[in-house]
């Protein structure tokens, strides 16, 4: 079974024919070519596939694509305005929050979701918000510093 659903992806309203059993991460990557969202553990444990659904962080590998019908989905491709890097992306770049880079899109989306709800989180709140995201390079210290640098740099998503 498949059906046509409407949803907003990275600011654009769209309609797509989506099979019932298709995962959101597969829909984004394979159907839409939005390969910035990574597939890591493919089992809900690593957070590499983190995207925003209605502004909240969700795991694309544990979400059925059809279940986000009518909702707003944002991926890493949407965070930088006009082809430039967002504050978070800039901070991850400058503060070495990225090593191999595989966890980075998920880390940035999880951090983005945090900063929209709480523009000035303390370190504990940052750690909690990113607690579902694994970095296999184990560069967590630099990742936390990157988020703090983005906060210091000003408004997120601009």
């Amino acid at each position: 079974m498949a059906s046509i659903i409407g949803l907003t992806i990275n600011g654009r309203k769209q309609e797509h024919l989506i099979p019932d059993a298709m995962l959101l991460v597969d829909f984004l990557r394979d159907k839409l070519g939005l390969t910035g969202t990574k597939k890591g553990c493919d089992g809900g444990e690593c957070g590499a596939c983190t995207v925003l659904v209605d502004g909240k962080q969700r795991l694309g590998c544990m979400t059925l694509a059809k279940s986000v019908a009518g909702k707003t989905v944002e991926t890493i491709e949407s965070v930088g305005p006009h082809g430039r890097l967002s504050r978070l992306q800039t901070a991850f770049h400058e503060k070495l929050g990225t090593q191999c880079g595989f966890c980075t899109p998920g880390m940035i989306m999880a951090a983005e979701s945090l900063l929209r709800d709480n523009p000035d989180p303390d370190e504990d709140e940052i750690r909690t918000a990113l607690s579902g995201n694994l970095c296999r390079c184990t560069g967590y210290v630099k990742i936390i510093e990157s988020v703090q640098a983005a906060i210091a740099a000003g408004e997120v998503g601009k």
Partner: protein
Amino acid sequence: MSAEMDFELATPKDASEAVALMQANPGACYIAGGTDLVANLRRGIGAPPMLIALDGIAEMQTIAEDGTHLVIGASVTLARLMAEGLPKRFAAMSALAEVAGPGLREAATIGGNLCLDTRCIFYNQSKWWRKANGYCLKLDGDTCHVAPKGKRCHAAFSGDVAPALLVLGAEVQVVGSGGARWMPLSDLYREDGLDHLTLGAGELLVAVRIPLAAAALHSGYAKSRLRKAVDFPLAGVAVALDCKDGRIADLRVAVTGTNPRPILFDHFPDAIGQEPTGAVLDAITREIGKDITPMRTTNMPGMYRRQMAGVLVKRLITRLCAGQGAKG
């Protein structure tokens, strides 16, 4: 994690339609947040021809008070309950924040966490892993690798929210073809890893209610696990008590992660009226130890989890009697 999923996704508009769909489609399965079910399906654990989605049912998304209870729809997400400040009203509900990670809590529901499938290191594996191991009693096989001589499944219930709700005296509402009924949460479970829920065919858990009076109890939840996030409990303990002049006036303890069901202990006649001294705490732990049976269903030995359950019980009771916070 390679199994291709193939199912029809039904999207009923209310609970009775969901129940009717379930009864008309044998082998179908309810899906709420899907955070556990999808992981299992992707591992080839089960292949239901139809999933019946509960996230679009408005009547299961409400939070309301009826004068004596806080009534929560089963499809309310854990993240929303946290945002609504439930852990501030009922301290044991800090268990919500201990479930998985933030991205999963945005999707995971309270009903789903209560109806979580039991877990075992021989069960939550890919199909090829399980096949190479001769499958197991819980699925596709006839031997329990945890206790090969036995004839029962020891997979452990590993939800964090159930013990908190048990000590708060919560009830659940179940809808079936015969209408709706409320029952104590403890009646939802039985001691069988293969079939740990007492729900009848097609029956659906639609709501949970917590007595408002439970807000006056000192309560808390503590969890043992390898990592501070994402992991299921090796052992999880919730405690609710009343404390008068430093003496235990009422005491309820619930344990998760050790047995096929979360177990409520509410009968401690020897502890009532006592100060939480070492001897009293030892007696409470011994009482709990009679019923908890952690087996080798996780990557940590059963004995470690048994000891940790006791340690967490003692810590929580001591802390709650001292009137401090409830973080484990």
